[in-house]
Every structure is written in C-alpha cells, then in structure tokens.
C-alpha cells in the first residue's frame, strides 16, 4: 500500500524543513520514536517547534536535538530530567511553553479531531490561564485551550502493518495515539512490521488512516528510572 519505508531517513525524506513543527509521542524515555529523532538530528533541520510531554535526557531522545540546538521551542509538561534543557532555557536560548499534561494530550487529540478549541478547568487561577479566554459553565470557571495541528508527527508503536495500523505495548502507548492524529504527516516506527491480516481489527490502537509512512527500527528502549523490589 505504499506506506512502507526502509529506514527513518528514507521515511523522513522530503518532509523536513527549517522552522517546522513536530509532535512526538512518548512519555519520559518510554515509547519514544528513537529512530526518527536520530534521523532528524542527522538531517540538520533547525528552528524546530516540538510538542512532546518531555524533552528526553541529555544524550537520548529529544535531548539530542537540544544538544545540537535544532530546537527553537518546546511545548511540554515536564522537563525535569534534562539538564541541557534547563541550561538553554534559563539562558534564554530556548523557548518553552508549559502545558499541563492532560491539556497537552487533549490539544493533540483535538487538533487531530478537527476541534480548534475546548474548555477545561485545568489551570484556572494559575499562570496557565493568563491571557486565555475564560467562560463559565454550570457555575464553574473554565479556560479555552486550542487544538494543536503540527507539520509532522513522529510516533513509536510495538507492531504495525502494511496499512499503517498500529498496536502499542503497555505504557509505551502514552502520547503516541494522540500525537499520531495531529500531524499533517505522521511517520510511525515499529518494532515489528507485519503483513495486513496479522493484527486483530479489534486490537488496533491507531487505525492506518493516520499513518502516512511506516518503517521498522531497532530500539534501545533505555530505562530512565530502574526501580526494583526484592521479590
């Protein structure tokens, strides 16, 4: 069906441009599109605006695009694990738009669903609400948040098929299904690429319509916070 590419760099060919906006799936280092991020670094594209819950760590995930200063602005809810991020931000080299985590996820979903704005109670009475339209519903105050539509979304799934259908594994799902919908183009990387008919239609998390290009990658899947119990 013409969606299959051999590698991240092939899948990204002709799509990247300076100043573009990118939505990325992943939470912490879990379920991040490692290969696409690496290929974006290699491409040298710059002045990126990236919407992603986190910014990776200094030498892995989106952190590597901060090292190379390819990112102009991050839209994130939590960047506490990234020292380089903090340095660039406090030094005024990097723009940062904090979004509450649920607001960020819903903004991606809304953008993908043709919803340009929605009201939420999250952030009312905080700096997040400053400059945003307020409106009362049923006696409570809400603020207007906008849908995010990005030039590109990059996501990582466990299995994918030739039609672009995706299945995620456990908490590696996180922002991926939402990010997948809000890019004008979506590139998915998977651990296993299978022919159509191999995935149960009731188990598919992201229908193929959202995925323009798909490739199989190898994934380090680094663990950020290895916590074990004795038994």
């Amino acid at each position: 069906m013409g969606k299959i590419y051999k590698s991240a760099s092939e899948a990204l060919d002709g799509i990247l441009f300076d100043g573009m906006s990118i939505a990325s799936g992943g939470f912490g280092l879990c379920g991040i599109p490692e290969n696409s991020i690496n290929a974006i670094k290699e491409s040298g594209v710059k002045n990126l605006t990236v919407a992603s819950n986190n910014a990776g760590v200094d030498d892995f995930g989106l952190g590597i695009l901060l090292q190379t200063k390819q990112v102009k602005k991050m839209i994130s809810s939590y960047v506490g694990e990234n020292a380089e991020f903090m340095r660039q931000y406090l030094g005024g080299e990097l723009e940062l738009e904090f979004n509450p985590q649920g607001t960020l996820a819903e903004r991606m979903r809304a953008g993908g669903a043709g919803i340009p704005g929605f009201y939420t109670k999250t952030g009312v009475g905080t700096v997040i609400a400053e400059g945003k339209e307020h409106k009362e519903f049923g006696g409570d105050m809400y603020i207007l948040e906008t849908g995010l539509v990005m030039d590109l979304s990059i996501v990582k799934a466990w299995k994918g098929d030739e039609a672009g259908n995706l299945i995620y594994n456990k908490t590696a799902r996180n922002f991926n299904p939402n990010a997948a919908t809000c890019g004008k183009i979506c590139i998915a990387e998977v651990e296993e690429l299978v022919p159509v008919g191999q995935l149960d239609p009731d188990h598919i998390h992201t229908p193929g319509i959202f995925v323009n290009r798909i490739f199989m990658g190898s994934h380090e899947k680094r663990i950020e916070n290895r916590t074990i119990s004795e038994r």
Partner: protein
Amino acid sequence: MWDRNQMASRAALELADGMYVNLGIGIPTLVSNYIPEGIDVTLQSENGMLGMGPFPTEERIDPDLINAGKQTITELERTSYFSSADSFSMIRGGHIDMAILGAMEVSEKGDLANWMIPGKLVKGMGGAMDLVAGVKRVIVIMDHTNKSGDSKILKECTLPLTGKSVVHQIITNLCVFNVKQDGLEIIEYADGVDRKKIEEATEAKILN
C-alpha cells in the same frame, strides 16, 4: 512527629474500598505500602495505566512498563492501558476518587503550589494541574515547614499556583488538617505534637 512512612500510613487511612486513586511522586508513592487489610484500591498512573502493581524483580523489568515517575513497575490482573488523552479524560472527568500529592506550599483556602520556583526550579507541572482540577478529593502530604523552618502552610501561597481552592486535606509531619471554608481545622495530632507546636509552624489560620 511523624516520619515519611508514618505520614504515608496516615494517608492510607483515608482510602476506602473500591476507590480509584492517583499517587504523586515522593512520599505519596509510599502510601501504597500501607493500604489497610480488606481495602481494595486501584491505582491510576497518568501516563496511561489503571491497576498499577509493585516494582518488578530484576528479571521482570520491562522498559515499556513505567509509572508517571518513570519508575519501572508491574501490572496486575485487573490492569488496563490507554492513551494519555484517555488517561486525562478519567482525571479531568472526575472519575478518580482521590489524588495524594506532594506540595511546596498550601494556603488556608486550599490553594496548592507544587510545580515551580521562579528562576530556580523549572521542571513543569506534569499532570498535577489536571489532577487537582479534576479529582474528587485531593490530599497533600508534606513536611509542615521547609528546611529553614519556615511554614509551608500559609495564608497565601507565594509560589506560582498549581490550583486554586483544590486541596481538601493536608497531612504533615505534625498533624492532619481539613481545609474548611474559612481556614484549617486540626483533626489529628502527630505523636508528641501539641497545639502550640502546630501554631508555631503554621502561618495559615487555624480554626480550632
């Protein structure tokens, strides 16, 4: 005075059978160690999991299975996974019964500040603003005072807010407060703590 574990175990007494609960990073995470016998609670993790299990043994570590603190965890028989948007539909939609969170400051009106110190600490709010806006009951666990001995329970928060009038109960190393319309009500003293000690450590208005 209570230590971290005693504060966590006190918070666990607020749990009721059948509840869906979100535990914040830090002391709140310890609450899961003290869930009373006969009380069945389902833990939600805002990165997309309902029914969070304990930390894994070395052999069972799975990089695709972490909690909101990015710690490796395990699943239970009842577990389900879902996207971040669906996770916060649960949270924002009022389906979670209780959130137990850490804090930097709480005001007598129940205002909460726990996400940034301007110019010093810029980590982000993560899911905290969504949790306090959407969850039915919000409990804060924290030390009563900071390292310099200043009260963290104030008339007005000085740090940027996470939410306004959102905290229902505060559990500290000194006591348990319920947040009322016009101030804080002491409902329990920690071992060896008297009224005077709490007063000295509290800037906020105490009702009783």
